[in-house]
């Protein structure tokens, strides 16, 4: 339905509202303002069905915090029917926006060098007592993110000697980007380097040819924070396996799996429900399959939590 009967838009109301007055005066913002002028809160987060002429058909009521799928489905179908019943003038109006009407600057599509290790990350908690769909830790939700390592950084995950049986340690610092950017837990936490109490990983070459080196990983992590912004801890283990092409200096497969306990000492009313502070979390990091709808999307903490020299390499 979203593809065949509608044009689907996902964007930030806050970004539109924060545009300058000059940009707000342009056609794009004016169209949005007009479309939602009869909504409950004007330009505000939510789901709306509007005509290309800028008329609000329906503000979708979808259930909070428990989504009512049948209700959403019915509202979508009814809105499409209502649209088709309108006259052409009511549906389309007489304004086709052009580049001159653009209010929202075009987002740059980030493209890291092909030599980088680009990983896609998914994370999900396990069931816990009092779990509630309001809570971001509910196992119905998966956190999706990206994790990037530069061409130099990724070499830290390849043993210097690739002979079968070689066992080497990964430099703890190489794991900071993964740990500090919350890739092993659901949600985002304000970890600092001093919160990492233990970050150990070893890698072992289990087979080796001139074309492919198979590497297994084993890691143990302990983190504890008691700052104003983060009162949390994490204790987990990681296992992984990867295939390295020594001549191309690229991973041809890569998977890291972690399992750990994430404890939040101070639950937040806008993110959590109940009194369960500690949940078990599973995390997965694999070579980014570059799904079409995720093209150009950078890691959530890019660029702020990445080194300056890495930022300079990304166009």
């Amino acid at each position, binding site marked *: 339905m*979203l593809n065949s009967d509608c044009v689907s838009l996902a964007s*930030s109301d806050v970004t*539109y509202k924060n545009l300058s007055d000059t940009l707000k005066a342009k056609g794009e913002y004016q169209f949005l303002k007009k479309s939602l002028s009869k909504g409950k809160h004007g330009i505000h987060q939510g*789901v709306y069905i509007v005509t290309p002429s800028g008329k609000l058909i329906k503000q979708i009521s*979808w259930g909070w915090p428990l989504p009512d799928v049948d209700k959403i489905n019915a509202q979508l179908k009814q809105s499409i029917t209502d649209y088709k019943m309108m006259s052409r003038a009511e549906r389309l109006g007489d304004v086709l926006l052009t580049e001159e009407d653009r209010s929202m600057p075009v987002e740059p599509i980030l493209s890291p060098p092909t030599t980088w290790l680009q990983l896609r990350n998914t994370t999900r908690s396990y069931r816990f007592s009092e779990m509630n769909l309001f809570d971001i830790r509910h196992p119905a939700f998966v956190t999706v993110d990206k994790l990037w390592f530069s061409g130099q950084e990724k070499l830290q995950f390849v043993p210097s000697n690739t002979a079968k049986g070689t066992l080497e340690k990964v430099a703890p610092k190489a794991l900071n980007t993964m740990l500090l950017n919350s890739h092993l837990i659901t949600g985002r936490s304000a970890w600092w380097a001093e919160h990492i109490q233990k970050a150990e990983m070893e890698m072992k070459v289990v087979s080796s040819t001139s074309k492919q080196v198979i590497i297994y990983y084993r890691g143990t992590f302990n983190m504890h924070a008691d700052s104003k912004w983060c009162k949390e801890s994490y204790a987990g283990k990681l296992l992984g396996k990867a295939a390295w092409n020594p001549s191309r200096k690229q991973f041809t497969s890569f998977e890291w799996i972690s399992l750990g306990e994430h404890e939040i000492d101070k639950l937040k009313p806008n*993110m959590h429900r109940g009194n369960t502070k500690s949940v078990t979390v599973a995390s*997965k990091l694999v070579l980014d399959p570059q799904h079409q709808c995720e093209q150009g999307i950078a890691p959530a903490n890019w660029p702020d939590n990445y080194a300056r020299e890495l930022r300079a390499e990304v166009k």
Partner: protein
Amino acid sequence: MKKLFHSLIIASISTSISFADPLTEAPPKELTWKTYDAVSRHASQGSQETLYFKVDWKNNVLAAQREAYQEDKPIVMILFFGDHRSNC
């Protein structure tokens, strides 16, 4: 907002939600090579959770209005605060 995004996609393509194992599955006592695949599956997106891959999302109003006008279709407008990768 992730709940909203996800439920809208499901509502548009499917008529029923099937929350399988992730909601009831208990974690293994520890991560070993024996439990590796099960933990990997738990951390993965299920088929229902990747339906949004199939939608041709526009990320700005201008692009959406132009296509909707030219194809004579209504616009489904999802406005969110923050970022789908983070907490909001």
